[in-house]
């Protein structure tokens, strides 16, 4: 556990929602019970809405299936993916909490090198409640951690850091590889426990994995749209990547921090590499254009909020990436739809929770 030097506030149980997309079952929650039970869960059920997904006893949750998504968003539901874990971002819109932790249903509790169970949620909370340091790299990694500090040569004017918007955790066992790598190295497992949290520097983008991810919804929520993937779309397995690239350039513009490293979870299921290859195929080519696009994004000085940045970004996507494929025109439109949906459900007038979701106390 990377513990802050200065103790942080209590565990945020009334300020954090855990968002879980699922199409299978929620059996994995049993293992997480000691860590998750105090928290409210938002389950986003993908796929067949008539299937009943059983939530283990004792959890406080709301569950949304596709019918709920369509009912709540109306025509705007078109921006939420179907048959892809990208649908999780619906949970981000309907949440009323300040913080979100999202985890996949094939992710279990990992052990640290001493054999102790890792409370991933607590680590994400530590990460989100302590500053980030994107302007200058600290060679001893997280300087706010117990047992560490800023090294010699680190400018004093930068030691206060900036607020942390995103906490990106990692995975032991099945690593998050793309299909070609999986095909070449089917047996590779990640066994290296790297005991560090670090800030990803400003101006550097990264591949954000949605399997084990925390963020401050108030700081960056509107940028955490997971795109158009899955059924009826030419691409899959790039949902979290897309959200990560958009969110990072916005964080850089607004001087917010993104951390990566601890906590680890245990990723148990390797998806089928041939299925993955079909989904990712176009993305592998497209990302060669997408990355230079994001690396050169600059925002106007009028873009002072996440929403304004995101709207400006959608225009740039439409202009610069449509030549790559018409898909990006659709995606740019969906980005705008997402923002409209976000504003509609999160404006001050709508402070009551979304009606008629299946809830249980």
């Amino acid at each position: 556990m990377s513990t802050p030097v200065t103790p942080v506030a209590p565990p945020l149980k009334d300020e954090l929602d855990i968002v879980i997309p699922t199409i299978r079952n929620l059996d994995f929650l049993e293992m997480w019970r000691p860590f998750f039970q105090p928290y409210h869960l938002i389950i986003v059920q993908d796929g067949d809405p008539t299937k009943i997904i059983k939530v283990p006893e004792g959890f406080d949750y709301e569950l949304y299936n596709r019918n709920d998504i369509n009912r709540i968003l109306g025509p705007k539901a078109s921006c939420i993916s179907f048959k892809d874990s990208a649908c999780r971002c619906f949970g981000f819109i309907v949440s009323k909490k300040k913080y979100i932790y999202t985890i996949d249903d094939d992710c279990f509790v990992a052990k640290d090198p001493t054999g102790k169970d890792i409370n991933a949620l607590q680590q994400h909370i530590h990460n989100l409640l302590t500053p980030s340091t994107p302007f200058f790299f600290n060679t001893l990694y997280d300087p706010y951690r117990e047992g560490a500090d800023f090294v010699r040569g680190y400018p004093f004017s930068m030691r206060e850091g900036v607020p942390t918007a995103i906490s990106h955790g990692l995975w032991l066992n099945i690593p998050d590889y793309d299909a070609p790598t999986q095909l070449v190295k089917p047996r590779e497992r990640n066994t290296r426990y790297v005991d560090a949290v670090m800030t990803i520097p400003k101006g550097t983008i990264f591949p954000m994995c949605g399997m084990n991810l925390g963020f401050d919804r108030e700081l960056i929520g509107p940028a955490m749209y997971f795109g158009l993937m899955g059924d009826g779309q030419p691409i899959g397995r790039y949902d979290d990547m897309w959200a990560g690239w958009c969110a990072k350039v916005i964080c850089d513009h607004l001087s917010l921090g993104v951390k990566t490293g601890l906590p680890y979870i245990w990723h148990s299921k390797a998806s089928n590499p041939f299925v993955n290859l079909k989904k990712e195929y176009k993305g592998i080519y497209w990302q060669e254009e997408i990355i230079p696009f994001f690396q050169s994004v600059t925002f106007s000085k009028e873009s002072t909020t996440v929403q304004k940045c995101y709207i400006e970004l959608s225009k740039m996507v439409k202009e610069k990436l449509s030549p790559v494929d018409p898909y990006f025109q659709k995606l740019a439109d969906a980005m705008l739809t997402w923002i409209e949906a976000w504003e509609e459900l999160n404006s001050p007038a709508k402070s009551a929770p979304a009606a008629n979701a299946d809830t249980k106390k």
Partner: protein
Amino acid sequence: MSETSINHDEVDIVIGALQLDLTSFMEEWRPVFSQFHLIIVQDPDLKGKLEIPAGFNFDLYTKSDIDGVLGSSSNAISFSGYSCRYFGYLMSQKKYIIAIDDDCIPAKDSTGNFVDAVAQHMTNLSTPATPFFFNTLYDPFCEGADFVRGYPFSLRSGVDCGLSCGLWLNLADLDAPTQALKPELRNNRYVDTVLTVPARTMMPVSGINIGFNRELVGPALLPAFRLAKEGNLRWETVEDIWTGMCVKVVCDHLRLGVKSGLPYVWRKERGNAIESLKKEWEGVKLMEDVVPFFQSLRLSTSAATAEDCVSEIAAAVKVQLAPANPIFARAAENMVELVKLWKRARTQ
């Protein structure tokens, strides 16, 4: 860039001797150092004869050698204190240099095994770096790891690594105010990773435990910037921080990588942070001006070698920083002189 393996005879290990008796230092490193050619440079302010145990293949340089090479430049440029090791960089004819402070001994990793810091630096320098996109599993070229989903394929060959920055257990390289505030703070955490510091991200390069490709970046690692009262404790110097910023700008411009992380060395207790605090530490204040300068520095497309880059940096320092403080004017002049020295040493 594919992996290359480095032969021992392509490496010089450079040791700046700031203490006379190197026996315990050399004995601790014997299993590693005995396989390499060493360049030992005696701090020209250190009077007396160095004690070096038998069984090592080394060349020794002292004040008279330094004065001989500096000739008429000796007024401005100083190789005293921690800067003495740079003289070793100048004298070396090898492709790779690894340098470790003389108060550091081998560390043990988290399973209790002896860490061969030299071998790790060699691995870092001979495997590609990946500065243009962050890999969340850190070094993709090490055993058991790879590039993650979402990493562009066109960036997966990486670039040459110009500099390898190691870390320190026990006494970390903290500045004097920090260590004085936390006198008990020791670094006990072995973080098992190497990563590439992204392009255009600035970092504090510590000279305590480094390796570099002398052919690619050598001219940037020369002692141009010195405080008025630079001391011989790391708490009282910033010369490596300055050269580190220069090297990073050079590497970013020439599309070379800078790695940070493993290997660790064990740094012994030495000196007193509070005593160092009492001395003048203007360097800390100066760094505040220096960082924005380096962060925004862009070199011209015609700068194709490290020498070209350093010359351009020197010119920019003279124009942008020197007006604020004569120490920068001296640094700029030194950089120009040192590039000349470098070129001269290469032709000999």
